[in-house]
């Protein structure tokens, strides 16, 4: 029985670290170049949505891909950060950067609380517990006054970021979102390739041995969980500013399922997989949006195919093909 994220690394682990770094750096440059040019060809609002989801999926992947913990409640962080950001920007009149910061901080605090409860268990228990706790957050958002219930918080002002970036202009907004995404992406990358990252991978592979070497798995798991929740919150806050909306969709468990699917489709435990998965799934959903229930069916079918026959995901398979980690 292999841990969830380990399959991909096992297939590509042969390359020397320096070589790996060069290939990933090259892939990173390509990704940035494509994302910088893309808004001139593709509808930017769609791209911003995909970028927010990509950051969300990267944050989620940190947990499943490198600690081996499947959280089924990540929507709680995305959604609650969205609500706080929207409320801060609309009702309190905060500037967008402060509003997003407030949302991110909320997600971080929630991450510490939910993480502290959930990391005491593993595997399926962990998935179950995160799901149930996130459902509690969902009901809170449904009933609390400031969230606007079924309506959500609408027409949130985008405002001026740092006093000089006018986010009402779509191009400016796009590059701000891109910068936030890249910041989050690099932070995750740095975390994975740091000594901290080595320890969490060691815990994933063999927790007992990590303990015997003097590491405290709970501390590392809680830090990883909180970091993941914080970045999910950053994605949620940014999304609320982009769409000028915070709604129940982002806290519902279907969103938690969607981020699992994005990461799975792109490749669990790969650096670029979550980004690819988020863009792929957003594209699929964009074209199926008019068909109502078909979105759910297609999502389900992708889940089944990925789990049964395509466990490495798109980027994982690609990495195996070129025999380099991506």
């Amino acid at each position: 029985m292999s841990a969830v994220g380990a399959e991909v690394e096992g297939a590509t682990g042969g390359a020397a670290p320096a070589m790996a770094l060069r290939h990933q750096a090259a892939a990173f440059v390509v990704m940035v170049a494509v994302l910088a040019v893309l808004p001139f060809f593709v509808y930017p609002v769609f791209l911003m949505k995909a970028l927010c989801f990509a950051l969300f999926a990267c944050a989620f992947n940190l947990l499943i891909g490198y600690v081996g913990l499947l959280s089924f409640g990540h929507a709680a962080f995305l959604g609650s950060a969205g609500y706080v950001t929207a409320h801060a920007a609309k009702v309190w009149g905060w500037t967008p950067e402060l509003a997003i910061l407030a949302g991110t901080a909320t997600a971080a605090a929630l991450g510490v609380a939910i993480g502290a409860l959930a990391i005491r268990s593993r595997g399926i228990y962990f998935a179950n517990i995160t799901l149930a706790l996130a459902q509690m957050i969902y009901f809170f958002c449904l009933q609390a006054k400031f969230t606007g219930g079924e309506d959500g918080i609408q027409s949130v002002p985008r405002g001026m970021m740092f006093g000089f970036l006018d986010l009402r202009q779509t191009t400016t907004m796009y590059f701000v979102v891109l910068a936030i995404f890249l910041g989050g992406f690099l932070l995750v990358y740095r975390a994975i390739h740091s000594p901290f990252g080595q320890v969490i991978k060691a815990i994933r592979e063999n927790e007992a041995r990590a303990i015997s070497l003097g590491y405290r798995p709970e501390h590392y798991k809680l830090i990883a969980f909180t970091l993941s929740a914080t970045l999910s919150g950053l994605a949620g806050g940014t999304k609320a500013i982009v769409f000028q909306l915070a709604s129940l969709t982002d806290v519902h468990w279907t969103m938690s399922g969607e981020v699992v699917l994005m990461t799975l489709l792109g490749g669990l435990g790969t650096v670029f997989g979550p980004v690819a998965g988020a863009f792929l799934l957003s594209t699929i959903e964009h074209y199926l949006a008019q068909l109502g229930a078909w979105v759910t069916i297609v999502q389900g079918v992708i889940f089944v195919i990925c789990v049964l026959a395509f466990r490495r995901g798109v980027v994982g398979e690609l990495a195996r093909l070129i025999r380099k980690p991506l």
Partner: protein
Amino acid sequence: MTPSPPSRGRGQGEGGRSTPVFQLLGIPPQALFGQLLIGLINGSFYALLSLGLSVIFGLLNIINFAHGAQYMMGAFVAYFLLQYAGLGYWWALLLTPFLMAALGMVLERTTLKRLYHLDHLYGLLLTFGFALIIQGVFRHEFGSSGLPYPIPPQLTGGQNLGFMFLPNYRAWVIVFSLIVCLGTWYVIERTKLGAYLRAATENPALVRAFGINVPRMITLTYGFGVGLAALAGVLAAPIYQVNPLMGADLIIVVFAVVVIGGMGSIMGSIITGFALGVIEGLTKVFYPEASSTVIFVIMAIVLLIRPTGLFGRAQ
């Protein structure tokens, strides 16, 4: 249809003319017992569903995320039997679990079986995919509104207990699910078949070495769990209507119930199922705002004190 009980509760209580015979903490007895009944009904479904999840989890080590969808399918099969085959409630109650169990066994043999050598989380993800497909297909075909399913003629009407009115069908659901739960408990904990099952849960390789066909047992167990979910669906059809999304949110509550009871514990699922239904009902009377979250709050508290659940053993 309601033969009016002596005092009609809330309405008179507000008027201030009723004699405060039964008043408990200012709550009129009808409201209290009414919610208690709803709590017991919900508890029956929590118990039946968490029992199925527990049995499946015990042997397969996967959380069957499709359980809610299979419960919903059970209700739909009952509806189809009535609409297209003219078979009423009792036939549905008998046939649906077997039909759904057969479907479950096919699913296990063709797909789930391929994942046993991997991390158990893949099983969870696969069944999650199935849940999405099933719910999507039914929502596509039948929309989101409910289809009515009649209460069987033998069980219409109700009993006036003096302090409350008890509809016969609801009493039947509570009693019948209690019988099914205790029957399952008896089979697993007290019979030879159950002993094999428990042994296979402990150590499948050793049980296989004794010549028992464990893979077949796994298939049958999955079928049995799915059958239980379908049975709950048939029982629920006359109460909640037949709705493609009836299992979607319910199953998450049931997951919390399973965590509270301790995963894999049979009696634990039954007791926590009924108890949490009642607690939820009482919360609706005393503090309605918390009624949808109370189970999750209890779960968080239980996890702090006993991470393995109330009746669970160490992982």
